[in-house]
């Protein structure tokens, strides 16, 4: 018997007889004979459940993972602590094996959870409305750019050059078919931030939006935001911010500073690292932009007896109704990840979010100071950073990461991998990194540097 297929040969015969057939192959009689495969595709043997388990455990052993090592990698994906309740609750099969909540009467669980997610995201961003999720931080930022262009009918967009390079690449891919001019706005190499003067001179009559990342790819929190917002709004452009939602633990929200659209990556809110996905994009806007939002949105209504009833709403924006005129083509989003984020936020609350941000901030600043004091590193930017920072390493970055790995530490990002200087390096620190791990990092980096200095050229 084939796995998961319950039919016995008796079942098959009875069912075939009802339709006047005798053999299963007759079910495919309409398909041209020369298209039908003569042999079954060779995908290797079908494994029993026991063999399957062994097979994947063996493959997994070829990975070096953060459950056995301290991770100092960030760059859009962060190793924050996830409470046990997140997987325990989100893993309930009533949530995992449910479909999109198109039949509200039997989907109130999913619908209420999404409504709560939307509510939390408006609070963490300081905005009026959020949707039910996007694929990831990169795609949500790309869709925000398209939204700004649709709203303003302007074709020029300014992108801060210190936005995550992989996000910039994604924005480009999404914008190429639409004749949008994307200009990169250089950041100040000393501060790591945008200068308001350069924004002022770069804003044009046909600028739809200025796009800024908080924090930047290098972990820096842009200053002078109120002034920047004024400049942008005086130009009748939109201000788009790509935001780390955990930063709300300590920092003013972009909404409170006048942003029109806030997007970002909520992987930090309860998602496993998962080798890059599934993650959790979000998009939140002012009320004025509500009807331009892409994707699903849940609203609160009532049934005829006055009971609270959550429903998918404003569906006229979406592909299944507006088709070629929809605000976006998105259909399936990241529903289960949004559920995990709500559970995480329910658990963490305001005090917990502050604690996560405070610890990440403090530990990152501890490590930063210790690294600079060791003499093996050179300062790069003087702008204020949150939980991630970039430095120049005086030794060899590749050797550094290998040496760290030998000691059970997954080092930071060698920025040469994204076209930066050979010595440029990016380190993220979360509440999970112990002082001991950080001290070991400092020591190993110094050792590798010293060894390299005295060694043969």
């Amino acid at each position, binding site marked *: 018997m084939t796995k998961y297929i*319950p039919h016995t040969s008796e079942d098959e015969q009875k069912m075939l007889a009802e339709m006047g057939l005798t053999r299963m192959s007759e079910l495919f009689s309409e398909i041209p004979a020369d298209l039908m495969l003569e042999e079954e595709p060779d995908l290797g043997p079908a494994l029993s459940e026991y063999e399957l388990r062994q097979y994947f455990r063996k493959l997994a052993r070829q990975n070096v993972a953060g459950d056995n090592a301290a991770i100092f990698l960030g760059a859009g994906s962060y190793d924050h602590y996830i*409470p046990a309740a997140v997987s325990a609750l989100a893993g309930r099969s009533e949530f*995992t094996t449910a479909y999109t909540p198109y039949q509200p009467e039997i989907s109130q669980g999913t619908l209420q959870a999404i409504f709560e997610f939307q509510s939390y995201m408006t609070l963490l961003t300081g905005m009026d409305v959020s949707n039910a999720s996007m694929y990831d931080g990169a795609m949500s930022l790309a869709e925000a750019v398209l939204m700004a262009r649709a709203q303003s009918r302007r074709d020029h967009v300014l992108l801060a050059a210190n936005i995550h390079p992989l996000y910039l690449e994604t924005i480009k891919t999404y914008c190429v078919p639409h004749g949008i001019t994307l200009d990169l706005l250089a950041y100040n190499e000393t501060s790591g931030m945008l200068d308001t003067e350069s924004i002022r001179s770069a804003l044009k009559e046909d600028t739809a939006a200025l796009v800024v990342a908080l924090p930047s790819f290098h972990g820096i929190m842009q200053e002078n935001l109120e002034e920047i917002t004024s400049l942008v709004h005086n130009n009748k452009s939109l201000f788009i911010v790509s935001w780390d939602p955990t930063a709300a633990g300590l920092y003013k929200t972009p909404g409170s500073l006048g942003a029109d659209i806030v997007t970002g*990556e909520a992987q930090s809110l309860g998602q496993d690292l998962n080798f890059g996905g599934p993650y959790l994009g979000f998009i939140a806007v002012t009320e004025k932009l509500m009807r331009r939002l892409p994707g699903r949105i849940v609203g609160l209504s009532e049934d005829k007896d006055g009971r609270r009833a959550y429903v998918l709403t404003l569906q006229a924006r979406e592909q299944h109704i507006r088709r070629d005129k929809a605000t976006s083509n998105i259909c399936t989003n990241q529903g289960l990840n949004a559920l995990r984020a709500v559970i995480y936020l329910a658990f963490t609350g305001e005090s917990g979010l502050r604690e996560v941000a405070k610890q990440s901030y403090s530990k990152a600043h501890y490590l930063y100071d210790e690294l600079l004091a060791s003499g093996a590193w050179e300062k790069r930017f003087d702008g204020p950073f949150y939980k991630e920072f970039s430095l120049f390493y005086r030794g060899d970055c590749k050797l550094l990461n290998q040496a760290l790995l030998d000691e059970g530490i997954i080092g930071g990002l060698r920025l040469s991998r994204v076209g930066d200087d050979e010595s440029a390096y990016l380190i993220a620190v979360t509440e999970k990194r112990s002082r001991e791990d950080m001290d070991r990092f400092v020591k190993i980096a110094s050792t590798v540097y010293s060894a390299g200095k005295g060694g043969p050229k």
Partner: protein
Amino acid sequence: MRLKSEALLFEQGQEGRQAWSLPALDCEDRSSEIKPELARSEKLGLPALSELEVVRHFTALSQKNYSIDGGFYPLGSCTMKYNPKINEEVASLSAFSSLHPLQESSTVQGALAVLDELERHLSSLTGFDRFTFQPSAGAQGELVGLLTIRAYHESRGDNSRTKILVPDAAHGTNPASATSAGFKTVEIKSDSRGNMDLDALKAALGDDVAGLMLTNPNTLGLFETNILEITRLVHEAGGLLYYDGANANAIIGQCRPGDMGFDVCHLNLHKTFSTPHGGGGPGSGPVGVKEFLVPFLPKPMVEKDDNGNFYWDDNRPASIGKVHAFYGNFAVALRALAYIKSLGGGGLREVSSHAVLNANYIRVKLQDDWEPAVNRSSMHEVVFSGRKQKHKYGVTTLDVAKRLIDLGYHPPTMYFPLIVEEALMIEPTETESKETLDSFIAAMKQISREMKESPELLKEAPVKQPIGRPDEARAARLPRLTFAALSKDKD
């Protein structure tokens, strides 16, 4: 008796409650160094809840959901098959779930091996040469496929191809994706047999057509018997063929879109390959292409070096770029590989043959009660029209759906495809037994009798769920989309 309403998290909790638990900070607290202009002083307004409050809340919410584990889900075009538990276990192995996407290649060989193996199997199954896993769902797969087609024509110096053809029965994401890729959509009508009208196709083809998007079988559950002619015509006119893999469950292991003349495709891992729907994702929409389109795929791609080690190849100058910061929904792809390895090629053949068996069984058993949209045998899904019932009894497909809910079933897909009046699309999938189908058929026959004898049972349905029919019109007219909107109501 209906389950009681569950309060919002924002209506629960109390200041001072705490569920989170972290080690004490082991270095100095530096957060006061944040400048006042950046530091938040106002409260965010998040509720403070205890662990048990949170657990009870989400447990209560889960009990209001219908799910595959709870019952039959005959949603056409969604392929709601059983989601195997062993796949969940594999995906939760910490040596996969704790992997950071930017780790050095030498530390992630197991993960890269998963993607490489899945790519090879999907290629064998579909007849395409290479796959990317970056698209997070079918719609994003469509966008990638269409951008690939666009890049291909551009590379030939041909900038006149501004149109994408789609059948009038196409899923809404097809024209929406075409718009996202910068194309104008032209709809081609279906003929009386439910297939693409070849004359209409010929009339629409020209040197301004970039390509045709098709799913096969189509959204009526019917195989495009003229497929080889269709692909030949489009290629002759200089266009490319895009295969929408939403209905792949009908043909997997039997025949291959790559052999039918398609140049590019997407598959839905959360449909055909059993990964869970999650209440709206995460899905995965890998895109497969023939060799000549490989250079245009998103970057990076998994490659193997001379020493047999996997690495990410970013050196792809003709690539359309990226649609995801990293590599797509890896943990979903991992589940799909586990599924494929549980079944093997022979098992996947059994999947499609039993999917088609089940759908046709329902078709022959219900065709006296509901009018099949087209008088033909179906593949993995069957479409009925509720037209006669509406005209005779004033009972709509919506009413039928709501009554089905009270009889314990998730309704089939309603009002799609758009070309069928009062459409009801039923896709049972291969994981449902004959007994389940017989029970469903009995329920549908009961509804068929009720609409004549006691239509109020349908009109008032559902009466057994946590809520009755919501006022959806009001929700759209006066949107209340957050908890804050509720508080405004009270003022």
